[in-house]
């Protein structure tokens, strides 16, 4: 039997479709790890990103630390945490959260940073409070970049969450880690395929969300063109594309 046939056989085995080691359940686990890791990272990254983007303070430190966090090897981090705090899903989630903080943080502060300073200045001069400026001006206008950061964070965590199985957690990584240990190549291949499909699906969903965010921030680009198309429109935002996103990085 060829590898392809063996893999197909692995997929069609009824054991893969029910019970706590089945593909659907592993997918739920995998999405669960991803979700909680992103939420945990967001708890740190959203307030920090708003503060840095809005005030401009600590910006250099943020650039520096997000850069060095990105250079952190995930397996090393995971092993370190496991040795220190023990094994299990919670440790994996913490490690994954640390991994994706840079993406989220960079999306937050660079998005807010890129908002037209004249719009912010005018809003303040009209008597908006700082909170109103953040909620009504900066966050809506930064949304495409913020969602870009979220999208790359989700993609990275989905891909990397497979490694969580290395310290005894569940998720789709189980198939790959166990398959490697048992030299069961169809299982490795099957698990890898599901991870790839899941990552593509989530990325597609967030691409849609990003488009929605762009519409929120720059609705004019999505409505019928102005009657006076020949008139100059020196919008300071025209130099920005609506699909800006922080550079992605995969470890």
């Amino acid at each position, binding site marked *: 039997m060829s590898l392809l046939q063996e893999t197909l056989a692995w997929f069609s085995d009824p054991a893969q479709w029910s019970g706590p080691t089945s593909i659907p359940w592993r997918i739920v686990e995998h999405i669960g790890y991803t979700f909680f890791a992103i939420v945990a990272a967001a708890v740190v990254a959203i307030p920090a990103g708003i503060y840095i983007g809005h005030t401009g303070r600590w910006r250099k430190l943020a650039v520096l630390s997000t850069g060095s966090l990105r250079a952190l090897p995930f397996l090393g981090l995971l092993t370190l945490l496991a040795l220190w705090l023990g094994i299990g899903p919670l440790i994996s989630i913490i490690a994954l959260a640390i991994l994706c903080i840079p993406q989220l943080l960079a999306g937050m502060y660079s998005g807010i940073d890129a908002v037209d300073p004249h*719009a912010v200045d*005018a809003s303040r001069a009209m008597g908006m409070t700082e909170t109103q400026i953040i909620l009504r*001006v900066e966050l809506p206008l930064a949304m495409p970049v913020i969602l870009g950061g979220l999208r790359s964070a989700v993609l990275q965590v989905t891909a990397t969450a497979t490694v969580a199985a290395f310290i005894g957690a569940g998720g789709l990584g189980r198939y790959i880690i166990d398959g490697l240990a048992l030299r069961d190549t169809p299982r490795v291949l099957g698990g890898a395929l599901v991870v790839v499909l899941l990552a593509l699906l989530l990325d597609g969903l967030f691409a849609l969300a990003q488009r929605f965010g762009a519409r*929120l921030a720059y609705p004019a680009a999505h409505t019928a063109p102005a009657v006076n198309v020949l*008139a100059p*429109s020196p919008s300071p935002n025209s130099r920005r594309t609506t699909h800006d996103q922080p550079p992605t990085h995969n470890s």
Partner: protein
Amino acid sequence: MIEFRSVGKQFADGTRALADFSLTIPSHSTTVLVGPSGCGKTTLLRSINRMEDPTEGQILIDDHDIARRDPIQLRRSIGYVMQHAGLLPHRRVIDNVATQLRLNGVPKAEARRRSSEMLETVGLGSSLHRKYPSQLSGGQQQRVGVARALVHDPNILLMDEPFSAVDPIVRAELRDELLRLQQELKKTIVFVTHDIEEAFALGDQVVVLKTGGEIAQVGSPVDLLARPAEAFVEEFIGLQQGGRRLRVQDAYGRRIVVDEHGRPAGVLE
């Protein structure tokens, strides 16, 4: 009435923008602050709505020290037009104009109705009200900026080089429009520019500033032309270059006004 009393401003890095600046700006008229870049005119303007706080001295609006007022409430009571219209790109024109009304707690429907009226007043028809700022020309965006600053009927209107980013034809149009509006509305306008032509066209009172916020002369355009206080003023208003030294010549029985190079500037009636 806006009063500057010995106002000084030193930035955190030690740069001094203003020192011992005193000036009275009368109500219901237009005062233009004009001067070269770095003369502190924008800092002066922005200290009236506390976008900048002076480090010395006092600013009084109708005899009340603004340092004691909450900056948010103060700003909501004043109109502000800036060089780059600074409109919110994610909100429709009409909602941009309604911003300050909404901040002041005016219900949405009424805010939109008043915004719509104000847009008509500044010459923007209803077909534009539901567009987004980027769909408008630069001149139209500035008109929206003016409507936004006037819609809540403030006593004071601050204008920071509002027309300098548009082309000369539109600039002249906007200037005439502002003169017309001001005849109706009689606001206390403080207008900042580096363009002496604009200062003469708009100002009841013109304040010529030197670098460092030092006042060279305060007076009406006629005062400045007839009795320039010093060489700096003469040069700044163009008396030395000869552009304003006009002579009358007879031609075909009419009296033609020419500049010092002999080029015709107009006809004397």
